[in-house]
């Protein structure tokens, strides 16, 4: 996959001399750099522009789950926003006032916040991911952020970092001291869906090759069949991708596989129709879900999940497979149990980390022993 380097970088003056800005200057020799007081919100998207801002919000947030569907209890580490991979279904398209690639330049603030968080919440496991508002590795060849964040997590006893990507930009991960605390994760779909709906992303083969390389470096892996797309040949498409996945990587290295059928805010439909007129994804059989998002009719979702779960079970019955934002009744149809019967979805994922990665948070000091039963103020 060839990532087009940004041709223009606009830096807010407060972060113009930050280590991130210096790295960008070094790694983007052909780009022009401009310093401004403040990057303004705009409505038009400039594909070659990268904005580096001084971020004043919280870097670490809880996964925006809703009460109607089971949430994974994940935390999101926000490093920037937007993405140039341009997937047809990408939710980031609705953020119309900030359409450009944007990075938070004050990474020192982010590491401070992370350190404080881990200091205050030592008693239990924290699964933290960076791929919510952008692709985790899209700009990594230019920013090299993984070279500081992966070793940071290696130094935490109870933190697991998940880098979610549709790229094969894993060059910076090679040779890093990850201490077994980083999961590199890929979103997967059938080749046909990738070509149609994620055309600028790495191909499925490239993603799997990158996964194999990471596995060779001792990283743990995860895969997300999300969004699962309904199309006439979906069964053979997903079966083929699963076969290729298990042919390429050792299932024992996979910590979890998540499944999530396409869902989107209703306003995305108009945007997809206008921006991606050849895409057919918004014409599926959708209903309005309990969280207000459009989702495939539940029987369709349950059919996807049962089919995929069964195939994964045949390969590795012990592999943690979970549904992203689904209700108990869809869990029951697809798995025969609901997360509540297994200690909740969050507990299932924590156990997967414990069993596959061997990370068990332990209460180390007398002060921490005073923490509540869950062992953690944040949980």
């Amino acid at each position, binding site marked *: 996959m060839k990532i087009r380097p940004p041709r223009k970088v606009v830096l807010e003056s407060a972060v113009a001399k930050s280590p991130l800005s210096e790295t960008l200057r070094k790694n983007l020799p052909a780009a022009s750099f401009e310093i401004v007081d403040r990057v303004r919100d705009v409505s038009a998207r400039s594909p070659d522009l990268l904005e580096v801002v001084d971020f004043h919000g919280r870097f670490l947030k809880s996964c925006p789950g809703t009460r*109607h569907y089971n949430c994974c209890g994940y935390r999101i580490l926000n490093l920037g926003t937007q993405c140039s991979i341009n997937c047809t279904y990408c939710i980031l398209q609705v953020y119309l006032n900030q359409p450009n690639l944007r990075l938070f330049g004050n990474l020192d603030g982010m590491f401070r916040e992370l350190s404080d968080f881990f200091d205050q919440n030592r008693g239990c496991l924290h699964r933290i991911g960076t791929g919510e508002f952008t692709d985790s590795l899209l700009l990594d060849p230019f920013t090299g952020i993984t070279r500081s964040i992966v070793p940071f997590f290696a130094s935490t006893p109870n933190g697991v970092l998940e880098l979610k990507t549709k790229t094969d930009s894993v060059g910076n991960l090679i040779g890093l001291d990850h201490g077994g605390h980083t999961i590199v994760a890929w979103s997967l779909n059938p080749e046909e869906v990738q070509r149609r709906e994620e055309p600028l992303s790495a191909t499925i083969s490239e993603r799997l090759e990158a996964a194999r390389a990471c596995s060779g470096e001792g990283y743990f892996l995860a895969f997300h069949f999300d969004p699962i797309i309904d199309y006439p040949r979906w069964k053979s498409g997903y079966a083929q991708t699963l076969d290729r996945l298990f042919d390429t990587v050792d299932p024992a290295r996979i910590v979890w596989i998540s499944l999530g059928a396409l869902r989107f805010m209703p306003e995305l439909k108009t945007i997809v129709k206008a921006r991606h007129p050849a895409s057919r994804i918004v*014409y599926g*059989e959708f*209903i309005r879900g*309990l969280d207000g998002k459009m989702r495939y*009719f*539940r*029987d369709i979702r349950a059919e996807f999940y049962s089919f995929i779960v069964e195939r994964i079970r045949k390969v590795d019955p012990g592999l943690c497979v979970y549904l992203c934002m689904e209700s108990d009744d869809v869990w029951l149809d697809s798995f025969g149990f609901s997360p509540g019967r297994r200690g909740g979805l969050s507990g299932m994922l924590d156990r997967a980390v414990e069993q596959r990665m061997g990370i068990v948070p332990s209460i180390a000091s007398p002060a921490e022993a005073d923490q509540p039963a869950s062992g953690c103020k944040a949980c």
Partner: protein
Amino acid sequence: MTEVDLCHVGLSQIDLGDCTFELRSFSDSNRLADSLARAGILDPVWLGEKSGKFFVVDGFKRLRWAKDKGSDCLFCRIFKEGCDLRRVWVEKLEKRLCEGEINLAEKAQIIAVLAELFGPGEIPGFFLSGLKAANRPEAIRKWLLLAGKGPRMLEALASGEVCERAAMEISDWDDPGFDSVLALLRALKCSASIQVEIVERISEIAIRQESSRAAVLELAPVREILSREMNHREKTAALRQYLAEVRNPRLSLRRKRFQRELEALGLPLGARVVPPEAFEGGEWSMQLSFTRPEELRKIFRLAEPVVASNRLDKVFEK
């Protein structure tokens, strides 16, 4: 300033056949006719001068009225020979926008003229806001398509038989589908939101079935519904239901199966199992309707063995 004059002009000097500047309203409003009958022509008619003769810029209906009435000459505002026709148009449109109440047919024609004068992407914002038209290339493109669809479309727009949003939706439909949907909307006389629902459904069914919109409108059940002896409300309801079923085949199959199983279950009258909306989520409910306590007791008594039997599970089956 455009060079203009005010003077009397004989009707015989005016070429009433030159309709270059006409914006047809496509509506049969009697307001102007009534006013003319009461008070005659109050404002000067606008004419342009060309080779010693005159063409009409503004006041087509008034001139036709004057001619029918046998008038010889009229007080007119004249754009003199050689004046910039673009300025003439701009002044005419300024005037029209100030007169208020522009129907959708006029709106389409005015946008087409503005696009011709300024270029589709350069229409001044004040014209578009005066027309309540979105200043987006896609919206302008659709208005231009509508303006080019011919008198039947413009009539339907002017009369309100086709609402603005539905018109925008169908603006780029190709001919056979466009003609059929126009006829359909005119026949159904339904509300704006239902029009939009119907045209969106037709489009989406065509996309899902990889066929054309015209083919969807030619489906036997659609034709059968439209030929039924029903009033337009009943036809609209039947068509909406059919289109919903075709658009959402899995959901509609599930609903039908659920209904069948529920009927087969034989719950007493007044008791009903209600699934969650679109079967989403786990919250099912049971509704009981009764008027007196003994009626409720009876429903409970009759329902109990039914609910206890494993026939109930069939109702919940996927």
